[in-house]
């Protein structure tokens, strides 16, 4: 049994047939062809499946896809190569194996929309739910600061 849901997926309208108990992570990765949406723990602890749902970060492994019907979903595939957060992560070499990186980029975007110039405590509070087993946390912190600077210099991005 499947049912159709409509998403605004990375800015484009998208209709997709989903199973009633299917997670958003599964739909995005396997039905919508977005390989950045990764499942690791499957219980909402590691943060590797983080996407933005109506601009808020969610663990897509915990969200039943039908509940996303009619809402906006953003993944790292929707960001251009000149995205300031992506640029900052590359510039600061804020990854090793990069498994956690797409989710961290999305979580960082959410952090910076809430706190354009975040304190260490705000960075910790927002990003501690995204585990990096390579332990690149110091570079990630630097990337968040760098992204904050880049966003501050850009006027074309709200």
């Amino acid at each position, binding site marked *: 049994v499947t049912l159709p849901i409509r998403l605004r997926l990375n800015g484009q309208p998208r209709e997709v047939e989903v199973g009633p108990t299917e997670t958003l992570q599964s739909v995005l990765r396997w039905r919508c062809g977005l390989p950045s949406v990764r499942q690791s*723990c499957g219980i909402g602890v590691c943060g590797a499946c983080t996407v933005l749902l109506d601009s808020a970060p969610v663990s897509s492994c915990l969200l039943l896809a039908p509940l996303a019907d009619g809402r906006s979903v953003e993944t790292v595939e929707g960001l251009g190569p000149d995205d300031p957060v992506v640029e900052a992560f590359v510039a600061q070499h804020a990854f*090793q194996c990069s498994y956690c990186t797409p989710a961290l980029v999305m979580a960082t975007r959410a952090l910076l929309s809430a706190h354009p110039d975040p304190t260490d405590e705000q960075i*910790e509070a927002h990003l*501690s*739910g*995204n585990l990096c*087993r390579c*332990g690149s*946390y110091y570079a990630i912190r630097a990337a968040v600061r760098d992204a904050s600077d880049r966003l501050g210099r850009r006027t074309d991005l709200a």
Partner: protein
Amino acid sequence: MMGNAVLAAAANLRADLLTRAAARLGADPSSVTLVPGAVALASRGPSEGGAADGPAGRAARRADEAAGPDDSTEGAEGETGGSDEAGAGGLPVSEPSRRGRVPEDHRRDDTRAGPTTGPEQQAPTDSISLSDLVPDDAEELSAEGEFRNAGGLDPDTGQGVASSQWNQSAVAAQVVVDPQTGKVEVEHVHAAVYAGRVVNPAAARLQTEGNVVMGVGSALFEEVVFEEGQVVNANLSDYPVPSLADAPARLTVTLLERPGAQVHGLGETALPPTPAAVGNAVAAALGLEPNRLPLTPERILAAAEVAATRGAP
């Protein structure tokens, strides 16, 4: 084996401090000793205790087992440093496995936890604080030590570690332990890695930082739990790994290079000594040695209880 180099560095640092302090106190260097945060006339120093085989020793042995012959032409130079409030030098020492214990003066005296974290110590009057010994413009104390061995496989047995390039590292950690809760906060870790010739400094540094973060996880909370032969904490809900909030507040890295050296691997070089460094720092802070990793609050409180029971008349 960098542990030997760290021990040598610690001994050098200790001797330097004692000499400086003795000169200031107008005493003979042999008559002064290090106490927490200060150098005092030896007769006023606290008695030294400590079990022989704590987690740091175990971890040190593990690091030691991982240690092996140098490639004989590559340096085995080490360095360690710490402020006057440093917790302890992390040391993949070879001494514990050979002699069963680390010399007390290395284990307890060279670096010490801050006054709030250790057992109550009355500062002797005939003493000089470490901060008075260090020049005002010096941010840190540092020392160097060196160890060389013949390298290669044992000619008699043909045994040894089959590593084409021996990887060497040394780690020092500074911790704060809450004696009420047993919670350990790692404030500063310094990792020194012998890297031969570094090709990609940013990646080498990043990987070494990752080593320390992972090592802090295994020191403080990572543990696979078995019950009746089954792993019972098979997902991240029950097996915490370090998050951004768990990374030490300060992490410094030295990549040691040598002109003309080969390019060495840097996979997990600084990982094994990290739990040893954290364990030594905790042991120094509490004056006791929790004997199991990870150093959870429960285990630290239990170790403190055992030590208190033993200390009772």
